[in-house]
């Protein structure tokens, strides 16, 4: 069993143009590891959605991708406003994104549902006023 690999990224807040950079970088690294294209796509979509969420709602945060022999974990942590009702936030089409963001084509309320769809496990820990940590697992 080899040691797990950790890739750490800081996600810049309020900058849509840089959102998605971490997911592109992770994609490159997973290709180097020889991970299958389907898994790479799952991880990069989940990460991309997570990055966008942190930019829209939380002024950025951090993303850690941990690659183990049997799974890939993605941990997204921010110190944003927190999610008041997680169940509601998980509903497709529900969004609290401001109009300014929606006019850019984001905030369709598909972020969290997509993250769940493309990963095998997803847990959300959130406290209003303190921040949110999302852990996702994609099995290899």
């Amino acid at each position, binding site marked *: *069993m*080899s*040691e797990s*690999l950790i890739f750490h990224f800081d996600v810049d807040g309020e900058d849509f143009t840089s959102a*998605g950079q971490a*997911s*592109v970088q992770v*994609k*490159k*690294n997973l*290709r*180097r*590891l*020889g991970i299958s*294209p*389907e898994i*790479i*796509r799952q991880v*990069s*979509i989940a990460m*991309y959605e997570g990055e966008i969420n942190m930019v829209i709602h939380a002024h950025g945060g951090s993303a850690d991708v941990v*690659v183990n*022999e049997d799974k890939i974990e993605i941990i997204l942590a921010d110190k944003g406003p927190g999610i008041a009702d997680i169940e509601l936030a998980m509903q497709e089409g529900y969004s609290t994104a401001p109009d300014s963001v929606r006019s850019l*084509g984001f905030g369709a309320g598909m972020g969290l549902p*997509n993250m769940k769809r493309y990963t095998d496990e997803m847990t959300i820990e959130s406290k209003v006023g303190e921040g949110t940590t999302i852990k996702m697992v994609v099995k290899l």
Partner: protein
Amino acid sequence: MYAHSVELDVSKCTGCTTCLRHCPTEAIRIRGGHAVINEDRCIDCGECIRVCPNNAKKAMCSKFEHYQHYKYKIALPAPSLYGQFDNLDDVDIILQGLLDIGFDDVFEVAQAAELVTEYTRLYLKTPGIKKPVISSACPAVVRLISLRYPYLRDNLMPILPPIEVAAMMARAKAKQEHPELEDSDIGLYFISPCAAKVSYIRNGFGKYKSKIDVVISLKDVYFKLLGAMKKSETESPTINSKSGMIGISWASSGGESSAILNDKYLAADGIENVNKVLDAIENGNIPQLEFVELNACTGGCVGGVMTIENPFIARTRLHSVRRYLPVSQNRLSGDMSYVPENCYSSELPEYTPIARLSENFSESMRMMAQIEKIRSALPGIDCGACGSPSCRAFAEDLVRGMVEDVSACKVMKKCD
């Protein structure tokens, strides 16, 4: 083995690192004082040829004068040729020029492009196909997808590019007009604007073998044509162009996609932009699109490395060339509602995981950990002096055993 078309003249290469830093697939290293191309990674985009300050890189092509053995020689000019000449608004003069320099007939690739446009419109209506459909006309893009975006392989349009359709039509026309000709008498000469098309023709596509016999460079033909066209200025051409606006528009970015008569399309050009768009499609982070046209060269085919004129000037010239032409001169026959069998290409490029460190996952993990460790000790300025395109690539080259030791880095801060 994939036969490439980018050639290096070692005696001219100074090892200056310009190409190293521009190669979009990190296929170049400087070793032993000169550039070395990794053939597995090269997509023949021609970027290194374009940026080389010493003209040490060039695209390999056949010379017309070395391929004279065909009894009946047909020129197949790419429409980008029409944008190369100053003050020229009549394509017929160029076609006449081609006859005058020794071709027996000319078949315009733009004609076939108009049919491919019609096929594309039909194909887009096929139920159940993966959208957006990505154009397969630029071979550098097709190869990039096969090396880097395996998930998007099924999005590639499974229809032969205009060059191949033109080759079939040209041969059929020649045999009809000259029944006495044997197949081996007819030579089809494609006049190419870029290196990627040369490689495509040499290698074929999966099991598909190109129907072009000889590829000659647009640059090479250009100088011969200049003389011939001056001569024919006084006499009126005996040959008439059969291309319309659509076919000629394929030469520049946006021409192919705007012709599908559907506003849900995107056209991107320049290899960096192509990568960005492919990343966005892969992540599903793109609006609902029907069709995506991607060209590795800035400006589209008029930006190919074997063209003469700057792509923006060439594009402007094409505007005046096509101004008074009909929209299209090559249409499907009235009741045709399907793409002919022989224009389909079911061959998808095979995914080659070139980036993979090792076939063994645990070994890849171990190598990656080592790369990250070495990288953190490197200066991180990506100067290229070590001969690798970035500090990260240098770390990878060390771990892969392609560089002997870390002393190749001339600006090392610390290393343990």
